Protein backbone atom coordinates (compact mmCIF):
# COMPACT_ATOMS: atom_id res chain seq x y z
CA UNK A 1 0.00 0.00 0.00
CA UNK A 2 1.21 3.48 -0.86
CA UNK A 3 1.98 5.99 1.87
CA UNK A 4 -0.23 9.09 1.57
CA UNK A 5 0.59 10.73 4.89
CA UNK A 6 2.83 10.12 7.90
CA UNK A 7 2.21 11.36 11.42
CA UNK A 8 4.48 10.04 14.15
CA UNK A 9 4.29 6.25 14.16
CA UNK A 10 1.15 6.21 12.06
CA UNK A 11 0.83 6.32 8.27
CA UNK A 12 -2.19 6.72 6.08
CA UNK A 13 -1.83 4.24 3.25
CA UNK A 14 -3.90 3.62 0.16
CA UNK A 15 -4.30 0.95 -2.47
CA UNK A 16 -6.94 0.62 -5.17
CA UNK A 17 -8.83 3.65 -3.85
CA UNK A 18 -9.04 2.25 -0.32
CA UNK A 19 -7.46 4.18 2.52
CA UNK A 20 -6.27 2.59 5.72
CA UNK A 21 -4.11 3.42 8.71
CA UNK A 22 -0.90 1.56 9.37
CA UNK A 23 1.25 1.73 12.48
CA UNK A 24 4.95 1.99 11.83
CA UNK A 25 6.38 0.67 15.14
CA UNK A 26 7.23 -2.75 13.71
CA UNK A 27 9.05 -1.37 10.66
CA UNK A 28 12.32 -0.03 12.05
CA UNK A 29 13.09 2.31 9.19
CA UNK A 30 11.95 5.78 8.15
CA UNK A 31 9.06 6.09 5.74
CA UNK A 32 8.43 8.82 3.18
CA UNK A 33 5.39 9.82 1.18
CA UNK A 34 4.95 7.61 -1.87
CA UNK A 35 6.77 4.62 -0.33
CA UNK A 36 5.10 1.23 -0.67
CA UNK A 37 4.51 -0.75 2.50
CA UNK A 38 3.58 -4.33 3.18
CA UNK A 39 0.87 -3.98 5.83
CA UNK A 40 -0.46 -6.82 7.95
CA UNK A 41 -3.29 -6.44 10.48
CA UNK A 42 -2.75 -2.69 10.71
CA UNK A 43 1.04 -2.77 11.08
CA UNK A 44 3.62 -2.18 8.35
CA UNK A 45 6.13 -5.02 8.35
CA UNK A 46 8.25 -4.11 5.34
CA UNK A 47 9.00 -1.30 2.94
CA UNK A 48 8.77 -2.51 -0.67
CA UNK A 49 10.74 -1.25 -3.61
CA UNK A 50 8.44 -1.02 -6.64
CA UNK A 51 11.32 -2.10 -8.90
CA UNK A 52 11.70 -5.40 -7.07
CA UNK A 53 9.04 -7.27 -9.01
CA UNK A 54 11.17 -6.68 -12.10
CA UNK A 55 14.05 -8.32 -10.23
CA UNK A 56 11.92 -11.42 -9.59
CA UNK A 57 10.98 -11.53 -13.29
CA UNK A 58 14.61 -11.17 -14.31
CA UNK A 59 15.70 -14.06 -12.05
CA UNK A 60 12.87 -16.15 -13.37
CA UNK A 61 13.73 -15.42 -17.00
CA UNK A 62 17.35 -16.29 -16.32
CA UNK A 63 16.35 -19.57 -14.76
CA UNK A 64 14.05 -20.44 -17.66
CA UNK A 65 16.70 -19.50 -20.23
CA UNK A 66 19.29 -21.66 -18.47
CA UNK A 67 16.79 -24.54 -18.33
CA UNK A 68 16.08 -24.31 -22.07
CA UNK A 69 19.74 -24.69 -22.93
CA UNK A 70 20.23 -27.65 -20.60
Amino acid at each position, binding site marked *: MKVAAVEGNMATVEAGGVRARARLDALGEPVSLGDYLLVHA*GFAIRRLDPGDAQE*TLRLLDELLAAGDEG
Partner: protein
Amino acid sequence: MKADQFALRDPLRGQALARALQRLAPERPVRIVHVCGTHEITISEHGLRHVLPEGVSVLEGPGCPVCVTSTVDLDRAVRLAEQGVAVCTFGDMMRVPGSRKTLDEARALGAPVHTVLSAADAVGLARKNPAQDVVFFAVGFETTAPGTAAVLLDDPPGNFSVLCSHKLIPPAVQKLVNMPGTGLDGLLAPGHVSTVIGAGAYAGLAGEHCIPVVVGGFEPLDVLYALLLLLRQVADGRAQVENAYPRAVSWEGNRQAQNLLATAFRVSDAKWRGIGEIPCSGLAVRAELSRFDAALKYDVPAVEGQEVVPGCRCADVLVARAVPSDCPLFGGECTPLTPVGPCMVGAEGACAVWHRHGERPAL
Protein backbone atom coordinates in the same frame (compact mmCIF):
# COMPACT_ATOMS: atom_id res chain seq x y z
CA MET B 1 2.59 -1.79 -8.26
CA LYS B 2 -0.50 -2.89 -10.15
CA ALA B 3 1.61 -3.36 -13.29
CA ASP B 4 4.01 -5.52 -11.30
CA GLN B 5 1.15 -7.65 -10.14
CA PHE B 6 0.03 -8.21 -13.72
CA ALA B 7 3.58 -9.03 -14.76
CA LEU B 8 3.67 -11.70 -12.06
CA ARG B 9 0.59 -13.26 -13.64
CA ASP B 10 2.05 -13.25 -17.15
CA PRO B 11 0.57 -16.34 -18.84
CA LEU B 12 3.52 -16.79 -21.22
CA ARG B 13 5.99 -16.99 -18.41
CA GLY B 14 3.52 -19.20 -16.56
CA GLN B 15 3.49 -21.63 -19.46
CA ALA B 16 7.28 -21.59 -19.66
CA LEU B 17 7.43 -22.36 -15.94
CA ALA B 18 4.88 -25.14 -16.36
CA ARG B 19 7.04 -26.70 -19.09
CA ALA B 20 10.15 -26.39 -16.93
CA LEU B 21 8.26 -28.04 -14.05
CA GLN B 22 7.18 -30.90 -16.30
CA ARG B 23 10.82 -31.60 -17.11
CA LEU B 24 11.41 -32.17 -13.39
CA ALA B 25 8.94 -35.06 -13.05
CA PRO B 26 10.28 -37.09 -10.12
CA GLU B 27 10.89 -40.82 -10.10
CA ARG B 28 9.05 -41.27 -6.82
CA PRO B 29 6.13 -39.35 -5.31
CA VAL B 30 7.16 -35.97 -3.92
CA ARG B 31 5.15 -34.21 -1.23
CA ILE B 32 5.59 -30.48 -0.89
CA VAL B 33 3.92 -28.79 2.05
CA HIS B 34 3.10 -25.13 2.42
CA VAL B 35 1.87 -23.52 5.61
CA CYS B 36 0.01 -20.48 4.44
CA GLY B 37 -3.64 -19.93 3.64
CA THR B 38 -2.68 -17.26 1.11
CA HIS B 39 -0.52 -19.76 -0.78
CA GLU B 40 -3.47 -22.15 -0.85
CA ILE B 41 -5.65 -19.40 -2.29
CA THR B 42 -3.16 -18.66 -5.10
CA ILE B 43 -2.68 -22.36 -5.85
CA SER B 44 -6.42 -23.13 -5.93
CA GLU B 45 -7.59 -19.94 -7.61
CA HIS B 46 -5.11 -20.29 -10.48
CA GLY B 47 -5.29 -24.08 -10.76
CA LEU B 48 -1.56 -24.41 -10.18
CA ARG B 49 -1.83 -28.03 -9.00
CA HIS B 50 -2.77 -28.98 -12.53
CA VAL B 51 0.50 -27.85 -14.09
CA LEU B 52 2.66 -29.85 -11.71
CA PRO B 53 4.35 -32.97 -13.04
CA GLU B 54 2.89 -36.33 -12.16
CA GLY B 55 3.86 -37.56 -8.72
CA VAL B 56 4.18 -34.10 -7.18
CA SER B 57 1.59 -33.07 -4.62
CA VAL B 58 1.37 -29.73 -2.84
CA LEU B 59 -0.52 -29.78 0.43
CA GLU B 60 -1.49 -27.19 2.98
CA GLY B 61 -0.22 -27.92 6.48
CA PRO B 62 -0.97 -25.94 9.64
CA GLY B 63 -1.09 -22.62 7.81
CA CYS B 64 -4.45 -21.22 8.82
CA PRO B 65 -4.05 -19.33 12.09
CA VAL B 66 -7.67 -19.45 13.20
CA CYS B 67 -7.87 -23.18 12.35
CA VAL B 68 -4.98 -24.12 14.61
CA THR B 69 -6.21 -22.03 17.54
CA SER B 70 -6.96 -24.55 20.24
CA THR B 71 -10.53 -24.81 21.53
CA VAL B 72 -9.05 -24.32 25.01
CA ASP B 73 -8.17 -20.74 24.07
CA LEU B 74 -11.31 -20.18 22.02
CA ASP B 75 -13.54 -21.43 24.84
CA ARG B 76 -11.73 -19.08 27.22
CA ALA B 77 -12.45 -16.14 24.92
CA VAL B 78 -16.13 -17.14 24.75
CA ARG B 79 -16.29 -17.44 28.53
CA LEU B 80 -14.68 -14.02 29.02
CA ALA B 81 -17.26 -12.45 26.72
CA GLU B 82 -20.05 -14.21 28.60
CA GLN B 83 -18.68 -12.66 31.80
CA GLY B 84 -19.13 -9.22 30.22
CA VAL B 85 -15.54 -8.55 29.16
CA ALA B 86 -15.40 -7.00 25.68
CA VAL B 87 -13.54 -9.52 23.53
CA CYS B 88 -11.96 -8.19 20.32
CA THR B 89 -10.58 -10.44 17.64
CA PHE B 90 -10.13 -10.78 13.89
CA GLY B 91 -13.22 -11.50 11.80
CA ASP B 92 -12.07 -14.95 10.74
CA MET B 93 -12.12 -16.14 14.34
CA MET B 94 -15.78 -15.30 14.90
CA ARG B 95 -17.35 -18.37 13.33
CA VAL B 96 -14.79 -20.98 14.32
CA PRO B 97 -16.58 -23.68 16.30
CA GLY B 98 -15.39 -23.98 19.89
CA SER B 99 -16.34 -26.88 22.10
CA ARG B 100 -19.45 -25.03 23.31
CA LYS B 101 -20.17 -22.19 20.92
CA THR B 102 -18.57 -19.72 18.52
CA LEU B 103 -17.78 -16.12 19.42
CA ASP B 104 -20.44 -15.15 16.90
CA GLU B 105 -23.05 -17.20 18.73
CA ALA B 106 -21.96 -15.67 22.04
CA ARG B 107 -22.41 -12.23 20.48
CA ALA B 108 -25.87 -13.14 19.19
CA LEU B 109 -26.79 -13.98 22.78
CA GLY B 110 -25.70 -10.52 23.88
CA ALA B 111 -22.05 -11.01 24.86
CA PRO B 112 -19.77 -8.07 23.98
CA VAL B 113 -17.70 -9.45 21.09
CA HIS B 114 -16.08 -7.09 18.58
CA THR B 115 -14.39 -7.67 15.25
CA VAL B 116 -11.20 -5.66 14.80
CA LEU B 117 -8.73 -5.28 11.96
CA SER B 118 -5.77 -4.64 14.22
CA ALA B 119 -4.61 -4.98 17.83
CA ALA B 120 -4.47 -1.18 17.86
CA ASP B 121 -8.25 -1.03 17.31
CA ALA B 122 -8.78 -3.07 20.48
CA VAL B 123 -6.62 -0.62 22.45
CA GLY B 124 -8.63 2.22 20.91
CA LEU B 125 -11.84 0.63 22.17
CA ALA B 126 -10.35 0.28 25.65
CA ARG B 127 -9.27 3.93 25.72
CA LYS B 128 -12.68 5.09 24.60
CA ASN B 129 -14.47 3.03 27.26
CA PRO B 130 -12.37 3.27 30.41
CA ALA B 131 -15.04 1.57 32.52
CA GLN B 132 -15.16 -1.47 30.25
CA ASP B 133 -12.59 -4.28 30.42
CA VAL B 134 -11.33 -5.10 26.93
CA VAL B 135 -9.44 -8.25 25.90
CA PHE B 136 -7.71 -8.67 22.58
CA PHE B 137 -7.88 -12.36 21.62
CA ALA B 138 -4.57 -12.51 19.78
CA VAL B 139 -4.31 -15.22 17.14
CA GLY B 140 -1.94 -15.51 14.22
CA PHE B 141 1.64 -16.32 13.38
CA GLU B 142 4.84 -14.27 13.32
CA THR B 143 3.28 -11.86 10.81
CA THR B 144 0.54 -10.77 13.20
CA ALA B 145 2.30 -11.04 16.55
CA PRO B 146 4.50 -7.91 16.14
CA GLY B 147 1.35 -5.77 16.13
CA THR B 148 0.22 -7.31 19.42
CA ALA B 149 3.73 -6.81 20.83
CA ALA B 150 3.74 -3.18 19.71
CA VAL B 151 0.51 -2.32 21.53
CA LEU B 152 1.63 -4.20 24.67
CA LEU B 153 4.81 -2.14 24.74
CA ASP B 154 3.07 1.14 23.94
CA ASP B 155 1.68 1.71 27.44
CA PRO B 156 -1.86 0.43 26.95
CA PRO B 157 -4.60 1.43 29.40
CA GLY B 158 -5.20 -0.68 32.53
CA ASN B 159 -8.56 -1.98 31.27
CA PHE B 160 -6.82 -3.61 28.27
CA SER B 161 -5.27 -7.08 28.20
CA VAL B 162 -4.33 -9.78 25.72
CA LEU B 163 -5.42 -13.42 25.57
CA CYS B 164 -2.37 -14.60 23.72
CA SER B 165 -2.67 -17.50 21.30
CA HIS B 166 0.07 -16.47 18.85
CA LYS B 167 1.95 -19.35 17.29
CA LEU B 168 5.27 -19.93 15.55
CA ILE B 169 5.64 -21.60 12.18
CA PRO B 170 9.11 -23.23 12.22
CA PRO B 171 8.41 -25.50 15.25
CA ALA B 172 5.15 -26.63 13.65
CA VAL B 173 6.95 -27.58 10.45
CA GLN B 174 9.55 -29.49 12.46
CA LYS B 175 6.72 -31.35 14.12
CA LEU B 176 5.39 -32.45 10.71
CA VAL B 177 8.81 -33.77 9.76
CA ASN B 178 8.69 -36.27 12.61
CA MET B 179 5.03 -37.26 12.35
CA PRO B 180 4.02 -40.59 10.86
CA GLY B 181 2.24 -40.24 7.54
CA THR B 182 3.26 -36.66 6.94
CA GLY B 183 6.73 -37.05 5.47
CA LEU B 184 7.62 -33.96 3.50
CA ASP B 185 10.07 -33.61 0.67
CA GLY B 186 10.06 -29.85 0.58
CA LEU B 187 8.66 -26.77 2.28
CA LEU B 188 7.20 -23.86 0.35
CA ALA B 189 7.84 -21.35 3.13
CA PRO B 190 5.31 -18.59 3.76
CA GLY B 191 6.16 -15.19 2.34
CA HIS B 192 4.96 -12.79 4.98
CA VAL B 193 5.82 -14.86 8.04
CA SER B 194 9.31 -14.94 6.53
CA THR B 195 9.28 -11.16 6.07
CA VAL B 196 9.38 -11.05 9.86
CA ILE B 197 11.50 -14.08 10.80
CA GLY B 198 13.78 -14.07 7.73
CA ALA B 199 14.65 -16.89 5.34
CA GLY B 200 17.49 -17.81 7.70
CA ALA B 201 14.96 -19.09 10.22
CA TYR B 202 14.63 -22.29 8.18
CA ALA B 203 18.35 -23.05 8.13
CA GLY B 204 17.93 -25.78 10.76
CA LEU B 205 15.17 -27.44 8.82
CA ALA B 206 17.32 -27.62 5.71
CA GLY B 207 20.59 -28.34 7.49
CA GLU B 208 19.56 -30.79 10.22
CA HIS B 209 16.43 -32.34 8.75
CA CYS B 210 17.58 -32.24 5.10
CA ILE B 211 14.33 -30.63 3.94
CA PRO B 212 14.58 -28.34 0.90
CA VAL B 213 13.04 -24.96 1.73
CA VAL B 214 12.06 -22.19 -0.69
CA VAL B 215 10.40 -18.99 0.49
CA GLY B 216 7.69 -18.03 -1.98
CA GLY B 217 5.52 -15.00 -2.72
CA PHE B 218 1.84 -14.98 -3.54
CA GLU B 219 1.39 -14.19 -7.21
CA PRO B 220 0.99 -17.24 -9.45
CA LEU B 221 4.46 -16.83 -10.97
CA ASP B 222 5.96 -16.44 -7.49
CA VAL B 223 4.50 -19.77 -6.46
CA LEU B 224 5.47 -21.60 -9.66
CA TYR B 225 8.98 -20.18 -9.46
CA ALA B 226 9.31 -21.35 -5.84
CA LEU B 227 7.98 -24.82 -6.74
CA LEU B 228 10.47 -25.02 -9.61
CA LEU B 229 13.34 -24.24 -7.23
CA LEU B 230 12.02 -26.87 -4.80
CA LEU B 231 11.76 -29.58 -7.45
CA ARG B 232 15.26 -28.75 -8.63
CA GLN B 233 16.58 -29.25 -5.12
CA VAL B 234 14.74 -32.56 -4.90
CA ALA B 235 16.11 -33.65 -8.28
CA ASP B 236 19.67 -32.63 -7.32
CA GLY B 237 19.40 -34.20 -3.87
CA ARG B 238 20.12 -30.81 -2.24
CA ALA B 239 18.51 -29.40 0.90
CA GLN B 240 19.05 -25.70 1.37
CA VAL B 241 17.11 -22.52 1.96
CA GLU B 242 16.42 -20.48 -1.17
CA ASN B 243 14.55 -17.21 -1.30
CA ALA B 244 12.20 -16.83 -4.26
CA TYR B 245 10.57 -13.77 -2.72
CA PRO B 246 13.47 -11.38 -2.20
CA ARG B 247 11.30 -8.33 -2.78
CA ALA B 248 9.63 -8.90 0.59
CA VAL B 249 11.94 -11.27 2.46
CA SER B 250 15.56 -10.95 3.55
CA TRP B 251 17.80 -13.54 5.18
CA GLU B 252 17.68 -11.81 8.59
CA GLY B 253 14.05 -10.72 8.46
CA ASN B 254 12.61 -7.65 10.14
CA ARG B 255 14.88 -7.02 13.13
CA GLN B 256 12.62 -4.36 14.60
CA ALA B 257 9.63 -6.73 14.58
CA GLN B 258 11.79 -9.50 16.07
CA ASN B 259 12.87 -7.15 18.88
CA LEU B 260 9.26 -6.28 19.64
CA LEU B 261 8.41 -9.98 19.84
CA ALA B 262 11.35 -10.74 22.11
CA THR B 263 10.54 -7.81 24.41
CA ALA B 264 6.82 -8.47 24.81
CA PHE B 265 6.70 -12.26 24.68
CA ARG B 266 8.48 -15.38 25.80
CA VAL B 267 8.43 -18.58 23.78
CA SER B 268 6.16 -21.22 25.31
CA ASP B 269 4.80 -24.64 24.53
CA ALA B 270 1.49 -24.32 22.73
CA LYS B 271 -1.46 -26.47 21.87
CA TRP B 272 -2.41 -26.59 18.20
CA ARG B 273 -5.90 -27.64 17.27
CA GLY B 274 -5.97 -31.13 15.81
CA ILE B 275 -2.21 -31.51 16.30
CA GLY B 276 -1.70 -31.25 20.04
CA GLU B 277 1.06 -29.71 22.09
CA ILE B 278 4.16 -28.59 20.19
CA PRO B 279 7.19 -27.59 22.27
CA CYS B 280 8.34 -23.97 21.98
CA SER B 281 5.73 -23.17 19.33
CA GLY B 282 3.80 -20.38 20.99
CA LEU B 283 4.19 -16.90 22.42
CA ALA B 284 3.11 -15.93 25.93
CA VAL B 285 3.06 -12.45 27.48
CA ARG B 286 6.27 -11.81 29.43
CA ALA B 287 6.11 -11.68 33.22
CA GLU B 288 6.97 -7.95 33.29
CA LEU B 289 3.78 -7.30 31.34
CA SER B 290 1.65 -9.78 33.27
CA ARG B 291 -0.90 -7.11 34.20
CA PHE B 292 -1.87 -7.17 30.51
CA ASP B 293 -2.06 -10.97 30.37
CA ALA B 294 -5.75 -11.89 30.29
CA ALA B 295 -4.94 -15.50 31.17
CA LEU B 296 -3.65 -14.28 34.58
CA LYS B 297 -5.95 -11.31 35.05
CA TYR B 298 -9.21 -13.24 34.80
CA ASP B 299 -10.37 -16.46 36.29
CA VAL B 300 -10.95 -18.40 33.09
CA PRO B 301 -9.24 -21.73 33.60
CA ALA B 302 -7.93 -23.65 30.62
CA VAL B 303 -10.41 -26.49 30.21
CA GLU B 304 -9.75 -29.25 27.74
CA GLY B 305 -12.61 -29.41 25.28
CA GLN B 306 -13.34 -31.32 22.15
CA GLU B 307 -10.89 -30.11 19.51
CA VAL B 308 -12.35 -31.84 16.49
CA VAL B 309 -15.85 -33.28 16.22
CA PRO B 310 -16.19 -36.92 15.16
CA GLY B 311 -16.23 -37.28 11.39
CA CYS B 312 -14.33 -34.02 10.72
CA ARG B 313 -10.89 -34.67 9.26
CA CYS B 314 -9.35 -31.31 10.15
CA ALA B 315 -6.78 -33.08 12.32
CA ASP B 316 -5.45 -34.77 9.17
CA VAL B 317 -5.97 -31.77 6.90
CA LEU B 318 -3.98 -29.54 9.28
CA VAL B 319 -0.93 -31.80 9.11
CA ALA B 320 -1.16 -32.38 5.35
CA ARG B 321 -2.13 -36.03 5.85
CA ALA B 322 -5.40 -35.53 3.96
CA VAL B 323 -6.84 -33.03 1.51
CA PRO B 324 -10.26 -31.50 2.16
CA SER B 325 -12.04 -33.64 -0.42
CA ASP B 326 -10.94 -36.74 1.51
CA CYS B 327 -13.43 -35.74 4.20
CA PRO B 328 -16.87 -37.36 3.77
CA LEU B 329 -18.53 -34.22 5.15
CA PHE B 330 -16.83 -31.86 2.65
CA GLY B 331 -19.37 -29.90 0.64
CA GLY B 332 -22.29 -31.87 2.10
CA GLU B 333 -22.86 -31.45 5.78
CA CYS B 334 -19.88 -29.09 5.98
CA THR B 335 -19.89 -25.91 3.87
CA PRO B 336 -18.72 -22.34 4.51
CA LEU B 337 -22.27 -21.51 5.64
CA THR B 338 -22.50 -24.53 7.93
CA PRO B 339 -18.91 -25.21 9.01
CA VAL B 340 -18.43 -28.38 11.02
CA GLY B 341 -14.70 -27.98 11.57
CA PRO B 342 -12.36 -25.00 11.81
CA CYS B 343 -10.85 -25.60 8.35
CA MET B 344 -14.15 -24.65 6.70
CA VAL B 345 -14.14 -21.18 8.29
CA GLY B 346 -12.51 -18.00 7.17
CA ALA B 347 -10.49 -16.99 4.19
CA GLU B 348 -7.54 -19.28 4.85
CA GLY B 349 -8.90 -22.62 6.00
CA ALA B 350 -7.98 -25.32 3.50
CA CYS B 351 -11.53 -26.69 3.29
CA ALA B 352 -13.00 -23.21 2.84
CA VAL B 353 -10.52 -22.40 0.05
CA TRP B 354 -11.16 -25.72 -1.73
CA HIS B 355 -14.89 -25.23 -1.44
CA ARG B 356 -14.72 -21.70 -2.82
CA HIS B 357 -12.54 -22.59 -5.81
CA GLY B 358 -13.89 -26.04 -6.60
CA GLU B 359 -10.40 -27.40 -5.97
CA ARG B 360 -9.75 -31.12 -6.12
CA PRO B 361 -6.60 -33.18 -6.01
CA ALA B 362 -4.58 -33.13 -9.24
CA LEU B 363 -5.18 -36.34 -11.17
